[in-house]
């Protein structure tokens, strides 16, 4: 039965529908159960992943595939769902707009993400992408009374529509030339037959642009800082990890696997994009004063690092991308839980608002330092191995120059991460009253920090896991 393999997705959608009815029927002040139900839904879906583990098959007329790669990302995305739900609960309960639809949209977006990672068909990937995107547009504008949130949503929507159109055009060109939308079939077409026509080059460029927009690669990144800053903070947290990871997963399916015959054509393109993306991301982040905006540029830079893995396109580099995403999800979820808290308490979004946090919330500040250290790539944290694997993969395949740019960039990134750490530890707080961390946010913070350290010290089992889930051998 094909449906058994998509049990996690079915569970999420069912829970989302229940919540949708709930959001319509129950009054705003009686919706406290919603995050609980949503979390339970995500956890149930996580359990439902278990029966399909280790199996490999194709379902729904080869639209969807069941393999280690899909399962890996399914688990990652469900964890993202849990972490984001937990860190949203407090923030959303304080908004004027009722929180119900928020969780529904979040669950739809997660469903879309899962389909993006587990489809081997261009159309199915595109549908998943649209499900993520449309949910994201609404999420970005969720604070209806806030003009900035509206601006974020409109910009994201307009640019997203353009990107979707370009992407779809690219997909149609691929279909027009190869006669199939199935990536496995495309991969089997001979190199010569595929590499000849210029049309496919144009199509390829459009695919890069479309997906590049979704994961915010430079120069398709311009929506990201505005959308990140304006969106409600938990949504920003979600944007910085969820859709990005899904976009990258789909890109791995399309480029190194589906269009592997054209590697020589897109490899250099990704290499240039990687170099520009990291550099622009890091340099621009240096001059930011708003922490959400800074993290937007930081996440652009992180995508730049990951893009190196796409450019290299070897088994080692694809595994490195998977490790990077796994590490990055925990780092950013943890980091954003504190940004959410400070925003929710009205302490602020500016870096100067973090002054003296080490005195106001010592444990949380220490956890944030762990995250920043990991983002810089200092050993004993997951971030170190994430960067190291990318770096090693690049050097092994002769992309020495990219590896050097990576190293220089991670040195530059110290500049702005350090600014926050300095504010937290060295600057005197304007108001010394302690900041109490609620239990749900504390759980996210602690999970993030522990996972970051665990991946940094005992990384071997996880590396083996990724080896099992690897798409390229």
């Amino acid at each position: 039965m094909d449906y058994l393999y998509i049990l996690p997705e079915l569970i999420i959608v069912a829970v989302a529908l229940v919540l949708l009815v709930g959001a319509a029927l129950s009054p705003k002040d009686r919706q406290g159960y919603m995050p609980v139900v949503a979390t339970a839904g995500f956890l149930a879906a996580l359990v439902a992943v278990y029966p399909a583990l280790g199996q490999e098959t194709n379902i729904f007329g080869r639209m969807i595939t069941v393999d280690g790669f899909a399962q890996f990302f399914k688990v990652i995305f469900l964890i993202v769902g849990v972490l984001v739900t937990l860190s949203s609960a407090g923030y959303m309960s304080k908004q004027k707009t009722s929180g119900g639809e928020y969780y529904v949209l979040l669950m739809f977006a997660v469903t879309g993400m899962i389909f993006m990672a587990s489809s081997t068909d261009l159309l199915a990937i595109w549908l998943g992408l649209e499900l993520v995107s449309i949910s994201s547009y609404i999420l970005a504008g969720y604070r209806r009374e806030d003009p900035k949130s509206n601006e974020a949503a409109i910009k994201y929507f307009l640019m997203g529509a353009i990107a979707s159109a370009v992407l779809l055009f690219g997909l149609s060109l691929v279909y027009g030339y190869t006669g199939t939308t199935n990536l496995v079939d495309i991969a089997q077409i001979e190199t010569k037959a595929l590499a000849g026509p210029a049309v496919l080059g144009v199509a390829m460029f459009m695919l890069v642009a479309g997906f590049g927009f979704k994961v915010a690669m430079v120069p398709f990144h311009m929506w990201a800082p505005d959308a990140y800053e304006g969106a409600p903070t938990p949504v920003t947290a979600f944007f910085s990890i969820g859709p990005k990871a899904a976009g990258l997963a789909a890109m791995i399916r399309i480029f190194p696997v589906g269009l592997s015959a054209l590697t020589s054509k897109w490899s250099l393109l990704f290499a240039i994009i990687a170099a520009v993306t990291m550099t622009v991301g890091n340099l621009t982040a240096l001059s930011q004063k708003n922490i959400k905006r800074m993290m937007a540029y930081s996440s652009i830079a992180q995508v730049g690092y990951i893009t190196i893995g796409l450019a290299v396109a070897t088994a080692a580099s694809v595994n490195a991308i998977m490790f990077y995403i796994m590490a990055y999800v925990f780092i950013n979820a943890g980091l954003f839980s504190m940004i959410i808290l400070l925003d929710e308490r009205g302490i602020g979004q500016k870096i100067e608002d973090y002054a003296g946090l080490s005195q106001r919330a010592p444990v949380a500040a220490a956890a944030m330092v762990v995250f920043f250290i990991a983002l810089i790539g200092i050993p004993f944290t997951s971030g170190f191995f994430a960067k190291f694997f990318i770096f090693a993969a690049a050097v092994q395949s002769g992309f020495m120059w990219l590896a050097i740019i990576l190293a220089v960039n991670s040195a530059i990134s110290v500049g702005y991460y350090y600014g926050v750490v300095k504010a937290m530890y060295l600057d005197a707080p304007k108001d010394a009253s302690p900041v109490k961390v609620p239990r749900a946010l504390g759980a996210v913070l602690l999970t993030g920090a522990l996972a970051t350290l665990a991946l940094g010290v005992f990384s071997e089992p996880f590396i083996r896991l990724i080896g099992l889930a690897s798409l390229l051998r």
Partner: protein
Amino acid sequence: MMLPYAWLIAALPLLASLAVMFFGRRFKNGGDFIGIAAIAVSFVLSLLVFGQLAGGAEPYRFTFTWLNLGGVQVQNGIAVDNLTAIMLVVVTLVSMLVQIYSRGYMHGDVRYTRYYATLSFFTFSMLTLVLADNLLLLYIGWELVGLSSYLLIGHWFENPGPRYASMKAFITTRIGDVGLFIGIIILYLTTGAFGFPEVAAGVAAGKISGTLLTIAAILVFSGAVGKSAQFPLHVWLPDAMEGPTPVSALIHAATMVAAGVYLVARSYGIFAGSPTALGVVAWIGTITAVIAALIATLASDLKKVLAYSTISQLGYMMVGLGVGGYTAGVFHLTTHAFFKALLFLGSGSVIHALHTQEMHEMGGLVKKMPVTAWTFIIGTAALAGIPPFAGFWSKDEILLSAYHYNPIIFGLTVFVAFLTAYYMTRAVILTFFGKPRDHHKYEHAHESPANMTGPLVVLAILAVVAGFPGSPLMGNWFGKFIHFGEFEAEAAVPSVMAMAIGAALLGILVGYVIYGTRLVDRRKAIAATKPVYTFLKHKMYFDELYAYTVIGGTQVLATIAGWVDKNVVDGIVNAVGWLGAQIGNISGWFDLTAVDGAVNGVAAVVSGAGRRLRKWQTGYVQSYALTFFATVIIGVIIYELIGG
């Protein structure tokens, strides 16, 4: 057998650090005794390890598979050989003494417990670095000592000085670290291993081409340049003196800054394959030694004198390693750790008593603080290279190696030996002799408590005797214990030894003539009439005039002309001093303008680019769409023209 338990040496300070951090506040003394007890046990263990290796035991190595990346295995582990054993003893001993000393020095500090926790953490990191049998673990320890150093420099972070200094130290050293990391990766990719013996074997087997080996070795060395404050990354160390003085003694004199030297020594198998890289090491060391020594002759802050002296001596060690004197470099590292820690702790004792670091507010302290003064003088003698103190033997060996290598380097190192003796004599005279210049401070000065003078005495004894194991008097025992390749005793060249002693004595003499005799003039002046006093006072501030020579060079020239008229001998002495000041000033200016300027320039370019890029982000969705489409269209066109 003790050797398999060597990991305990590093583990104990870590446990102590955690214990102090979490439970320290519950105890009366902030838990300092936990740290001291742990390091004492570590020290005893280190001595046992050292004893066994000295007794002829085989070096010990323990490895385990740390990562298994689909066939590629990364090993991790620790190794205890002779070099490690020496470092273990040095690190644990100095750390123990510094922690005892800190009980007095840091008494009543607001973050006393944190201080002890960080100190123990630093010791753990440094011992990890020393025990590592591979580049990866060494790099981890390397970063952790950098972190602890950062935390300790910024210990008094309420003040902008320490805050800025800690940042500068962290960022400057990280520039070198990037190079080190790339070097490690290059070595791993070519030799397939991180372990020192494996990498060295790979290099010896020719797995890495000559040019790439030179690049890798220089990249590894760039890490050492940052950590050991070598030119041009030396700018952070003088500023790091903003930290508590015991920290300066432990981290910025005896151990962490020597880690760069240790790194070069430890990976000597890599450097040995590339004469070019060794040449770079030797020349960087020489340049550093000369520049820092020249600046030291002008510094008026006692700790800054010692800081520049440390940079200069680290340059010396690099020279030793670079010119092929492996034993000499490591030997100087060992002896320097003792006497420089002694000097720093001595200066700390003075600062503790006077609450100032300016030498112009000191003077005559030998009467008030005899223990501090005399131990400081012993340290000075050792640093200046007066036989039979420790520094003499190790410096002599470096000079000997340089003598066989290159006459220019040899000449410059002898010159540095002269300068070293000169500026240390100046520091001693200004601090401890003559009349007190700040009577208020002098009246309140007192000898430090026993837990501060105790470590001074222990280190003073070591500053006297630590050189003997490496001297011909004990049959070059040190050389037999630590050597690269086959051990061969180098025949002492009497003329080299004579030049070393001569340079040191000349330095002391010049220093004494300039500062000692001028102070005699001053005593007369106070007794004499007021105009004469003012005139002599003007003389007394000759140092300040030196400092202003760049601005008012002619004024100085006139003054010197007057001096020559009045007293020819004094005039010549002053001319020598003026020349030194000029050179010192120029290199100081170079240091401030060119090196700092380059560092600031890079920062400015980076942040400028950031601002420029930010403007690109206009906020108009139309321009975003335009960028998007333009990129797609231009990209497709370029792509089809070039790649299609």
